[in-house]
């Protein structure tokens, strides 16, 4: 396996892992999108939202239930399994039916691989998210949410799951002498962009002053550093690039995609921020993608917590480790109150998890597809041809994809 040339060219480490094979490159397309939009009010069941997004995505793809032979239903809390989604949609028969763990790309990767291997021809991905009773007073008062369980331990002295991001944010600030300024810019960027997105749960502007005055939750992270719990659902339809050419929308091709972890990924035992699953994802994308950060038009780094976004900027190579503060200041459009890399690459144009809502990355992927196929409405970037999307955090769910339209 000829690893040396490409690794040497890209300056990638030779040790350890994996492969630079990417036979799936540009062979699978995202051809349908559906979304309920996201809100903090709720009122519909997880299944109702899943079916609403799914029917919209299938219709958007120019297909019907009779065409769908694969169902990937993300295993979100309270979500319905693929077999009941099939029942609910009136699908006749399916040859691929799975429920991958949350954060968006596990489901998209599974669907893409099903199409590529011939397991199914038209695969539906559906991801409903619902607020847990622990997410807000209003949610706690909702009897329909009472049965839900959080994965978070009910003891305060815990630095796993969500709390781990606050803990490592403290380490980032300590190691690099960072201030909260870059964290604020990530949050403000998302809020600014959400204003042009009718699907977003929140669209009121956020100022630096309001960010600084915000209520601390898990110090050093405040309420604006944490994604916004919402109800809603996204759905996607994937098929082969060949089949996609006869469907209504410009096909958006999966050029390269991966997930990645380091083995030693227990949150509070991580060796350090110098080598996380984000690095594994980036190295693998650089091995398998012909397109990298000099060639992309849009960037969708995850921001379930703002610290995650800073490290995605650094680990993708936009700037060196610890340099996100300088980088975001230099690439800030002060008139627009948002990040524009080199004045041309906008970031999380939909408002991300911080302001559109905590979709766990489906929003980032949906918006990238809208932009690339030219259906992003008032947010449309008219030169959009390639996007880098990086869902997930540090520990057990980092993921990435390069999406493009046909050359």
């Amino acid at each position, binding site marked *: 396996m000829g690893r040396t040339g490409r690794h040497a060219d890209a300056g990638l480490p030779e040790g350890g892992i994996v492969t630079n094979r990417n036979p799936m490159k540009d062979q699978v397309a995202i051809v349908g999108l559906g979304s309920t939009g996201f809100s903090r009010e709720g009122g519909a069941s997880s299944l109702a939202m899943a079916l609403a997004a799914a029917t919209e995505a299938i219709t958007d793809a120019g297909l019907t239930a009779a065409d769908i032979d694969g169902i990937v239903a993300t295993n979100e809390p309270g979500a319905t399994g693929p077999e009941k989604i099939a029942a609910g949609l009136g699908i006749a028969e399916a040859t691929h039916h799975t429920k991958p763990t949350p954060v968006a790309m596990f489901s998209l990767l599974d669907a893409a691989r099903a199409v590529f291997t011939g397991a199914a021809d038209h695969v539906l991905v559906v991801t409903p998210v619902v607020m847990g009773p622990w997410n807000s007073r209003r949610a706690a008062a909702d009897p329909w949410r009472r049965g839900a369980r959080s994965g978070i*331990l009910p003891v305060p*002295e815990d630095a796993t799951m969500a709390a781990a991001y606050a803990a490592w944010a403290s*380490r980032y600030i300590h190691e690099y002498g960072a201030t909260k300024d870059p964290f604020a810019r990530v949050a403000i960027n998302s809020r600014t962009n959400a204003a042009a997105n009718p699907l977003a749960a929140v669209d009121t502007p956020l100022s630096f002053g309001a960010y600084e005055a915000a*209520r601390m939750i898990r*110090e050093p992270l405040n309420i604006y550093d944490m994604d916004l719990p919402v109800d809603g659902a996204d759905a996607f339809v994937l098929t082969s690039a060949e089949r996609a050419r006869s469907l209504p929308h410009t096909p958006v091709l999966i050029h390269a995609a991966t997930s990645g972890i380091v083995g030693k990924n227990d949150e*509070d035992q991580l060796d350090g921020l110098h080598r996380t699953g984000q690095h594994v994802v980036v190295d693998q994308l650089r091995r398998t993608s012909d397109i990298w950060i000099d060639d992309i038009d849009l960037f969708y780094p995850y921001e379930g917590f703002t610290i995650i976004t800073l490290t995605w900027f650094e680990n993708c190579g936009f700037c060196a480790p610890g340099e996100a503060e300088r980088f975001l200041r230099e690439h800030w459009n002060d008139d627009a109150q948002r990040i524009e890399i080199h004045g041309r690459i906008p970031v999380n144009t939909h408002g991300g998890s911080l302001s559109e809502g905590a979709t766990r990355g489906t929003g980032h992927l949906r918006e990238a597809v809208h932009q690339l196929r030219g259906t992003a409405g008032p947010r449309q970037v008219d030169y959009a041809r390639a996007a880098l999307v990086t869902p997930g955090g540090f520990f057990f769910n980092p993921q990435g994809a390069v999406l493009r339209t046909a050359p």
Partner: protein
Amino acid sequence: MNGNSEETDDALIARFAGNGITRDNADHFRGRLDRRLLMARCADCGRWQHPPRPMCPACWSWNMAMDEVSGRGTIHLLMVLHQGPPAPGVDYGAGHPVVTVELVEQPALRFTSTVSDDFPADDLAIGTAVEVEWAERDGTPMPVFRKAAS
């Protein structure tokens, strides 16, 4: 020492219900009842691992045992919780510190807890040397960290 480490599985599980107790980490919690901070260590190659798992990831030995750590280390990660799950004696209004301490036994071997009630505020920072002491929550011994005697 209160000798409660002989407690039955049922009683142990009830006592540490909120802590995610499993077969694999039960002996760590038994150690707490004796006010000993026990962590998993490979009896063959000597590597520590936390959280406890039944096999050594370094040498694939199944000869894992619980061994007592010194409880000495430095604060590696730090957060101050202003809200969180209700717990006896925890006042989120004042801010509840949670520290992840890197122990002297092995690089990146860490234990997460809170600090002693009299921990000096000025020293609550990453890099501060600490050592374990035993507090109680709901009548159950709990390892916390105090500033190390210099």
